[in-house]
């Protein structure tokens, strides 16, 4: 700019002037003189259905593989027999008292994992599981000794498997016969995550990228450019209704306490594997001209998670013991002793694949900055948890201690939970009002009560959400 110039209104009058012209006619004359148009976008539009077909095929294939894997898993008769082999020969000893009063191994373990639906396991299962556990250990030894499966009487505080080394005096030495770190033990058993879930996890990001590359229908492209260049970034207050949804990934850590005996049954920082999730949000928000926003609404989250941990403990107990005498040929016979002191090692095995559905009301405050097609916002607030339900299945072999049948949706929450959250969101505009986003979120519930107030939980949830966001606003 010329340094001699002063601020001049007359100059602005001239440079702002637009000569009247027929732009369409002008363009029609100009276009033939321009270099030919590139046809690259057509490739991506063809790639989109191809990608969807491939994705669908992979899902179908993974489903087939999962079913086959489940079937072959049950068929591991040599090491993981089904409980029916035991119960067919000898029905479970009923009325032992322990099962109905004291949590079984699986119950404790299940409840320790916060929301795995422990009360839904029947007491009769405990004996069946004991039988299968003993039979498993019998497969490990081939020295002609008998292996005893016992169920303790009312005085006992544990409910375990007993392996007996001396056939003539089965009460002399007892020890826990849970297969743990031994060869052929549970820790050696490969329990894969369902292949379908693995593929879903891997495919989340490419799906978003394909969406990014293939967007922009030509007819809308021009409207986007024109509108965006012609209008200011933000002018005045904005009122908006926002709908968003998409896949994500998350982990949770929790601390669980039984309210009745103040026993911490799950330790802090028991983190689960990173698994995929889905979230749908409907929010209302107000944004000031300075970029400060206030939001409130409703969100539904479906979080898949896998629990995979174990914990050992040892206790002494006194009381009548019942069970089976199992030999290494697979035969068994009932066994009972009126009273005995025994030490028992208890191993809690928690291996679940869960789906947790949550309905929450976030109320938050934050700041949003927009830069071209990008926007970034950071904020946080209160999170009201209206409902949490659970469905899942055990990843332990059928008949294993801690195994339980697949369960459908069950409400876990006994009252409304109050937590807080913080989040950062990076978004990229695709079309006016439509953007894709990545949103890491941290939320915490410091004192959640679940399952009829039996358990108090404290948990943190770190969640990376991606998806598409549609915004209807007054601008």
């Amino acid at each position: 700019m010329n340094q001699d110039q002063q601020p001049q209104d007359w100059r602005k009058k001239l440079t702002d002037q637009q000569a009247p012209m027929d732009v369409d006619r002008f363009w029609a004359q100009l276009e033939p003189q321009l270099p030919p148009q590139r046809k690259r976008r057509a490739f991506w539009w063809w790639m989109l259905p191809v990608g969807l077909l491939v994705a669908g095929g992979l899902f179908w294939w993974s489903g087939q593989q999962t079913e086959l894997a489940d079937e072959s898993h049950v068929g591991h008769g040599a090491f993981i027999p089904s409980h029916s082999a035991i119960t067919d020969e000898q029905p479970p000893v009923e009325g032992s008292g322990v099962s109905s009063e004291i949590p079984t191994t699986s119950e404790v373990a299940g409840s320790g994992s916060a929301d795995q639906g422990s009360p839904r396991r029947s007491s009769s299962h405990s004996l069946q599981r004991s039988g299968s556990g003993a039979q498993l250990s019998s497969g490990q030894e081939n020295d002609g000794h008998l292996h005893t499966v016992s169920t303790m009487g009312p005085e006992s505080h544990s409910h375990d498997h007993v392996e007996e080394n001396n056939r003539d005096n089965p009460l002399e030495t007892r020890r826990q016969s849970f297969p743990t770190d031994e060869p052929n033990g549970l820790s050696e058993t490969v329990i894969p995550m369902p292949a379908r879930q693995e593929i879903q996890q891997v495919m989340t990001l490419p799906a978003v990228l394909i969406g990014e590359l293939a967007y922009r229908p030509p007819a809308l492209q021009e409207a986007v450019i024109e509108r965006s260049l012609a209008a200011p970034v933000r002018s005045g207050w904005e009122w908006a209704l926002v709908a968003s949804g998409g896949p994500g990934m998350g982990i949770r850590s929790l601390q669980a306490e039984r309210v009745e005996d103040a026993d911490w049954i799950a330790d802090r920082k028991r983190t689960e594997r990173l698994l995929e999730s889905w979230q749908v949000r409907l929010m209302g928000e107000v944004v000031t001209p300075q970029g400060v926003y206030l939001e409130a609404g409703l969100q539904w989250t479906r979080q898949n998670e896998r629990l995979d941990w174990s914990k050992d403990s040892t206790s002494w107990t006194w009381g009548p013991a019942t069970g089976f005498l199992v030999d290494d040929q697979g035969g068994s016979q009932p066994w009972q002793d009126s009273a005995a002191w025994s030490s028992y090692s208890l191993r809690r095995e928690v291996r679940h694949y869960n789906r947790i559905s949550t309905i929450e009301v976030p109320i938050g405050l934050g700041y949003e900055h927009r830069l071209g097609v990008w926007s970034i916002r950071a904020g946080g607030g209160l999170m009201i948890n209206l409902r949490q339900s659970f469905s899942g299945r055990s990843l332990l072999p059928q008949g294993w201690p801690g195994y339980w049948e697949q369960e459908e949706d069950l409400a876990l929450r006994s009252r409304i939970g109050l937590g807080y959250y913080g989040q950062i969101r990076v978004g990229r505009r695709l079309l006016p009002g439509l953007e894709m986003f990545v949103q890491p979120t941290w939320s915490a519930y410091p004192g959640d009560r679940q399952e009829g107030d039996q358990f108090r939980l404290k948990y943190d949830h770190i969640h990376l959400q991606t998806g598409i966001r549609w915004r209807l606003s007054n601008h």
Partner: protein
Amino acid sequence: MVYPMTEKELIRACQNNQREAQFTLVRLFAPRLLAVCRRYVPDGLDAEDTLQDAFVQIFSHLDQYDPARGTLWKWLCRVAVNAALKKHRLTGRWHLDRAALEDVPEIADLDHELNRLEARAIEDLIRALPDGQRQVFNLVAVEGFSHQECGELLGMATGTSRAYLARARQQLQQQIIHMETQRL
């Protein structure tokens, strides 16, 4: 809710010869650029021809646009002016005696006088200037080019450009005084 597409994106799309983006650029800037062309090429049809040449140049050399050196509008304006000057062979025939500069008094309140006029009246005044003075005044005073840039565009020395501008300002001042005298 407005998510503006950036200038950079628009330029990139035009460089990729995406017709939608090119048409958008034309629709956004053509009317203003036509007004620029008309300041140099008084004939209306010639001005549109010039503008077509300018847009062909713009889309061919968009990769040469450097945002660090100025706004997109200024670059477009420069290309359009260049096209107008070349098409009508207005370059390379400017010679002015530097000594003539000494006789030109500084016009202090010309801007103030021009501010009081309507755009059309200002255009009429500029159009009445001799060729050299008109081109320099348009380039330097209206479009905002420096004397060096003006000299490069018109093929004249920087001093010559300064002299033409001073004379143009003096001429405009006299025209305004004459106009007001007639009005009285």
